[in-house]
């Protein structure tokens, strides 16, 4: 049986529905991210698990106990906020020990636990500091320690890195993952940053407009998006408008040039319009090699050098195609305006139904 079970949860505020038919089972020790744009219901769902919002209908079960009607202070769930939410009147040590003090644990035990957590977050010498003396990244580490101090059944993180700058975000992300693995704590992580979700999660729940679009490992969600929304939200994606030329063999026409997809398209009539999605990194500039590949010709519109990656934009009649190639000092990047032929495999193409 799953450690956290969310069954048929729905939440509406007046007439507007924030979350609908949300089903999810999370295993013990699993790290699951809720990913989606703002307003997709990910935070509302997290807040229902924490107990700050009550579902309009549906059940939430943690470790076999139905907590749907349990107030937040009896759920034993640790929460980390985007704003850190450290108590400004308390030292770092008092912040971390707050939950244990509320639970009336003996002072010796609190001190021991606080010391241990300060060590885990690599801030052993900061116990006597006040929150305002710390940087944002340090404050969020203290907030994480505070949430972990009560040995919660679940750790909930609501966009914990959004207020930090890029460099700290990356290092703290790794630290969160390490601590989570080390303690084996079941974690739900809310973010709108797909890179963050992919780097951290065992599984990602992609949400849009209050509904789950797809649940899967980062590999699955990125490579086999279930819906057009997932395909476009997770990673960069080229979507070409195409018409079906021969459904049985999977032949399509893109602006007069023919390409082939890996599967037949019996559900589409010839002449029907479909979207074809291709990841930028699955396209190669080397138009000559490979005999079984699709080829498209156009002109180079722009070249952006990003260091390890070179991003090429190609004009294809009306469409723009993004191509990511690895940097190679031996190869000169193409010049804007030059004609170019690109290549990609048929199985790199994803046919999107609702074109």
């Amino acid at each position, binding site marked *: 049986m799953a450690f956290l079970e969310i069954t048929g949860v729905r939440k509406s505020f007046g007439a507007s529905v924030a979350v609908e038919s949300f089903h999810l089972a999370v295993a013990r020790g699993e790290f699951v991210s809720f990913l989606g744009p703002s307003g997709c219901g990910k935070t509302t769902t997290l807040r229902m698990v924490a107990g700050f919002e009550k579902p309009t209908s549906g059940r939430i079960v943690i470790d076999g106990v139905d907590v749907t009607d349990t107030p937040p202070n009896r759920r034993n769930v640790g929460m980390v906020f985007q704003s850190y939410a450290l108590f400004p*009147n308390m030292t770092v040590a008092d912040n971390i020990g707050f939950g244990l003090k509320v639970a009336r644990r003996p002072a010796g035990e609190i001190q021991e636990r606080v010391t241990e957590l300060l060590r885990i977050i690599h801030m052993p010498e900061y116990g006597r500091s006040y929150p305002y003396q710390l940087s944002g990244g340090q404050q969020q580490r203290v907030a994480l320690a505070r949430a972990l101090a009560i040995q919660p059944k679940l750790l909930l993180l609501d966009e914990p890195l959004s207020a930090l700058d890029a460099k700290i975000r990356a290092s703290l992300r790794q630290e969160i993952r390490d601590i989570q693995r080390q303690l084996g704590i079941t974690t739900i992580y809310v973010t709108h940053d797909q890179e963050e979700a992919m780097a951290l999660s065992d599984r990602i729940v992609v949400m849009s407009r209050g509904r789950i679009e797809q649940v899967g490992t980062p590999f699955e969600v990125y490579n086999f998006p279930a819906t057009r929304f997932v395909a476009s939200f997770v990673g960069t994606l080229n979507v070409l408008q195409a018409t079906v030329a021969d459904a049985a063999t999977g032949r399509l026409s893109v602006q007069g040039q023919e390409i082939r997809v890996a599967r037949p398209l019996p559900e589409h009539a010839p002449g029907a319009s479909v979207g074809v999605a291709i990841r930028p990194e699955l396209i190669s500039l080397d138009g000559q090699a490979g005999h079984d590949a699709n080829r498209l010709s156009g002109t180079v519109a722009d070249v952006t050098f990003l260091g390890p990656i070179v991003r090429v934009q190609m004009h294809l009649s009306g469409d723009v195609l993004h191509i990511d190639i690895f940097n190679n000092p031996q190869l000169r990047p193409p010049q804007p305006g030059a004609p170019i032929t690109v290549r990609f495999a048929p199985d790199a193409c994803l046919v999107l139904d609702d074109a």
Partner: protein
Amino acid sequence: MGKRFWPWLWFLLGASYFLVPLYATFDFSLRARRGELTFAAYANVLRDIKFVESFSFSLQTALATIVVSALVIVPTAYWVQLRLPRLRPVVEFFTLLPFVVPAVVLVFSLARTYSRTPLTDSREGLWVLLVGSYVVLSFPYMYRAVDTGLRSINIHDLTEAAQSLGAGWPTILMRVIFPNVYVSLLSGAFITFAIVMGEFTIAALLAQPAFGPYMNLLASSKVYEPSALAIISFGLTWAAIAAIQWIGQGTQARLVGPR
């Protein structure tokens, strides 16, 4: 000079508007004996047992008022901001009523409403009524101060953080909200303190041995002592304001700090 002339002129004019009467009062209070400057009037005031009595009576009343007012205002302002933000203008309006309703009207209504109850039958009851009236008078200052203080911290997230750590409402209020609005509470409290120490109408009409009526009595029976008393009460008020600054500074730096 040049550019600085006009600002300084207005500043000096403004300052003299306050300082000249104060100096005149002080000067007058020193002339209790013909031909010499003396603190005799001050000695007379401080020696008067009624001064000590009425002053300590008002001091206790002021402290009681501050405690009751804080216990009413902080949870109210907190709850309004957390859960009933739409009621905020309404609550603000109610807290401003003491500016609209004259003290005389307030005290007569209270006396009528609570006549023939223990509140008007006994000395202790009247004192409770007095504290109650002062609590109402303190609302505009206390509510505003606390409301501003609450706005400067993220009470929403702090509340939820405390809740997720197992805290119930009493713990959240005592350990998280009160300590964090302490400084704002203090500034409201000292204004309240100054008002209660000098209040005359309500105390007189409820026949309470307070400092305000004592000052009035002194003014009608003595010549130099009332001036001495005025200077003393000025000094005490200023000491109170200095105390706000002094206590506030340390805590302020700790709570707000650089952001």
